[in-house]
């Protein structure tokens, strides 16, 4: 094609293409360059490696509770009495109804992440369950929220019984056992 047959140059069109490509490419570059910095704020590998904890159930008498750390979070292990089990099995909780059987592998042992689902405080042990000192959420002996601002029941960590007196908290190779 001869040069003089070319259509006249549309300056507006050229500007548009030039500006768009420049800003899109530059924008993508800036966004990509931001990623390492944003990602650096996520948990580092040493933090992630605290994934599982072992806990011994030895010496926790019925009615007693033990707190063990898992991923830096407190995990409550409650040895429930027969009375507590029966009263929990007959109710469905409160704001976030769930059967007690769905929350335990062995009804004697209740294993919970001890962090209030409202704003992350550690609820204090009371006879009837737990009470969060920060904003007054109340949980029963199945870790189900009864009243207060907490939206959900206390979280259940993945765990499994390695023997009748020991559990491993956290995701292991095998999926957690469902009772």
């Amino acid at each position, binding site marked *: 094609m001869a040069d003089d047959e070319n259509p006249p140059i549309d300056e507006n069109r050229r500007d548009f293409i030039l500006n768009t490509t420049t800003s899109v490419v530059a924008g993508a570059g800036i966004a990509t360059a931001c990623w390492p910095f944003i990602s650096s*704020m996520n948990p*580092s590998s040493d933090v992630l490696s605290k994934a599982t904890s072992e806990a011994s159930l030895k010496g926790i008498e019925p009615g007693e509770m033990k707190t063990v750390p898992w991923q*830096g979070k407190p995990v409550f292990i409650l040895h429930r009495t027969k009375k507590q089990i029966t009263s929990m099995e007959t109710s469905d909780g409160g704001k976030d109804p769930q059967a007690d059987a769905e929350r335990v592998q062995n009804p004697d042992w209740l294993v919970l992440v001890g962090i209030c689902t409202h704003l992350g405080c550690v609820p204090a042990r009371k006879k009837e369950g737990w009470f969060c000192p920060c904003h007054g959420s109340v949980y029963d002996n199945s870790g189900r929220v009864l009243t207060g601002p907490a939206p959900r029941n206390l979280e259940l960590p993945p765990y499994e019984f390695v023997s009748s007196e020991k559990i491993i908290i956290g995701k292991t190779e095998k999926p957690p056992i469902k009772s």
Partner: protein
Amino acid sequence: MKHVIGWIDRRFPLTAFVKHELTEYPTPRNLSFWWNFGSLAGIVLVIQIITGIFLAMHYKPDASLAFDSVEHIMREVNYGWLIRFMHSTGASAFFAMIFIHMARTLYYGSYRAPRELMWWTGQVLLLLLMATAFMGYLLPWGQMSYWGAQVITSLFGAVPFLGDEMVIWLRGDFTVGNATLTRFFALHYLLPFIIVAAVIIHLVALHAVRSSNPSGINLKDKNNIPFHPYFTVKDLFGISVFFTVYSYFVFFNPNLLIEADNYIPANPMQTPAHIVPEWYFLPFYAILRAVPDLVGGVIAMALSVMIFAAMPYLDRSKIPGGARYRPIFRIMFYLFMLDILVLGYVGAHPPEGFLVPLGQIATFFYFAAFAFLRFFSKWEDKWLFNRGLPAEVQAMLSSEQAQKTDRRHHKKDRRETPGDNHND
């Protein structure tokens, strides 16, 4: 000396700048002492930056060392106790000055046109101050530090979809941990300098629109006096009074506003039986607790801070200024202050018994004050106009009208641009 200044002036507008912005800067002659609190907040900012830099020379931002390094500052560093108490008292003083500064702005309607940008840059400054204070409070790594950070970072869990990931990202850990402490320290050192930049913007805006004054209208030139010496002296007087009160807290009662529980090292396994934020967050904390729902509570709390930005739109009274010539606005202002005190009381105590409904009622009135301001103002305008305005207000209104038309003529002459936004 003259030679040196002359040499500089030929290269940099030093004398002109000082003259224009300081010595000859026109300032309304009727300013009361309520106009002192801006400069006082500036002084506290300087105290905080200086003491903070010296504290950072001895502080160790590491979860296993932080608590002990603060005690090291208190016991072993020469005058460490003084520098630390100046810094911790300064944080409270900063909020006290800012709250009074804001209350003055609300009372006298200083946020109204043409000072909306003053108010909004001030709002940004308030948010920056809150963020800086919150991050600084984690650094001593005591129980209150730890659980305060735990609760506030958890607030971001209310963000839809990304909430949980965002909380972990903010903390750099599954709970508040070492990663959280080091990043809070980095940001706590950075933010004050951003605050300085924002203060400069606030002052540039101030010098464009000039100070408001108790009357609520822009004064004519003859009612303005040069900033120096009249207001340099007045500000210095305010500063000396401030330092007297500040020194009382630093030297005689430095622990008054520090929760005793913060002298217990952070323990991620146990929340203190009763956690409370610092006094300056109590009303907002009470609003958070008043809503029995996580997302709702977070929205209400965020709104309780941000809603001030809407004031220039919510207040459309035809009477100039704030409470001075508007009795109903004045009553609303005092009730609002009372409501904030009630919220503060509720926030400071465990959520039990009558405090729960009291907090909810106070939260309702807090937002109602903003929601109904326009209707009350309209009714008040009508009532005041029907009753007949006091002569001085009438005079102010007509002189303001005259100034406006005057300005509009000038504008038209200069640029031939129609329209003038000063009408609303």
